[in-house]
């Protein structure tokens, strides 16, 4: 069991991917760990957490993003962060054929990068909500990340549908469309990304692409 978990974690790290896209389920059930990875052309994030109760999970996240410089076309500067995370399932509604959730994800850490003469303290408090059935998914979130002189505020809306019902132990494919806006303070970026989502019991994968490039999100529960 330990060996399997280590191999899985190593695989996740080897993929070198990072995530902010753990939107469907930012934590597992009590006593479970979760690894979340995303990469897109200008953002990468790797996060892992462990659920200490049915509604609380503690973890860590590391990430990197690129943001456009003021008034300088095609120029970007990068930021890197590392943070401790706390996830709270604020509310869940278990309906006969649907589930809805509201989540809070807090983050406290450090950020560094081009244009910053030193590391700075970083804070974030994200709120997310989702509603899904076995065929339809809708989710939305807001994640402001702030430090002195640094701003990375993400807002997103996602919707999708599964192509067909699948048995519990089968892979179920979905189509998901994400609209996302990231505000860096002096500039902002809008993205619309279509994705294919594949859900299996232990693995959740999204593969997408927009005009800026490919996007890959992965969640794995050991």
């Amino acid at each position, binding site marked *: 069991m330990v060996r399997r978990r280590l191999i899985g974690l190593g695989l996740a790290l080897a993929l070198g991917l990072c995530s902010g896209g753990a939107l469907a389920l930012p934590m597992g059930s009590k006593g479970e760990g979760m690894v979340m990875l995303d990469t897109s052309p200008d953002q990468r994030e790797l996060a892992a957490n462990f659920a200490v109760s049915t509604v609380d999970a503690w973890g860590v996240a590391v990430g990197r993003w690129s943001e456009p410089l003021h008034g300088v076309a095609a120029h970007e500067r990068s930021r890197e962060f590392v943070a401790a995370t706390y996830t709270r399932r604020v509310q869940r509604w*278990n309906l006969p054929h649907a589930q809805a959730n509201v989540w809070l994800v807090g983050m406290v850490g450090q950020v560094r990068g081009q244009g910053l003469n030193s590391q700075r303290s970083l804070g974030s408090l994200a709120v997310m909500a989702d509603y899904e059935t076995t065929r339809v998914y809708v989710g939305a979130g807001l994640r402001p990340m702030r430090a002195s002189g640094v701003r990375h505020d993400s807002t997103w809306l996602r919707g999708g549908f599964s192509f067909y019902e699948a048995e519990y132990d089968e892979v179920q494919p979905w189509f998901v469309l994400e609209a996302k806006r990231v505000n860096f303070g002096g500039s902002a970026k809008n993205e619309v990304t279509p994705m294919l989502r594949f859900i299996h019991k232990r693995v959740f994968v999204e593969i997408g692409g927009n005009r800026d490039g490919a996007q890959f999100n992965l969640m794995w529960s050991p």
Partner: protein
Amino acid sequence: MKVLCAIVVAASLLVVGAAQANTVKLSVNGMVCAFCAQGIEKRLSKMPENGPLYINLKQKVVAIQAKPGKTIDVDKVKAEITEAGYDVVQVQTVPQTVAAIRAEMKAKK
């Protein structure tokens, strides 16, 4: 004649035993995604008395069959499903095996 009677009795016991498979069938709200519901499978599989397990998301069913000679602890099963983040709305003890329930559900598709 005695041998024939013994065979008939043994066969009858086998039929009765199969009909009395100790299986609990639960109706669970909120199970809409396999990745999310796999916590239920993990928790219930760790219970020593639990044998074959079946989860059907669309029919919102979780069925657990006891291992031979064991009995399902229904209260503990309900508690584990609740700890996994779901709501149990109905519990039934049924004579079918998990394999029979699976076949029945597939036939309904």
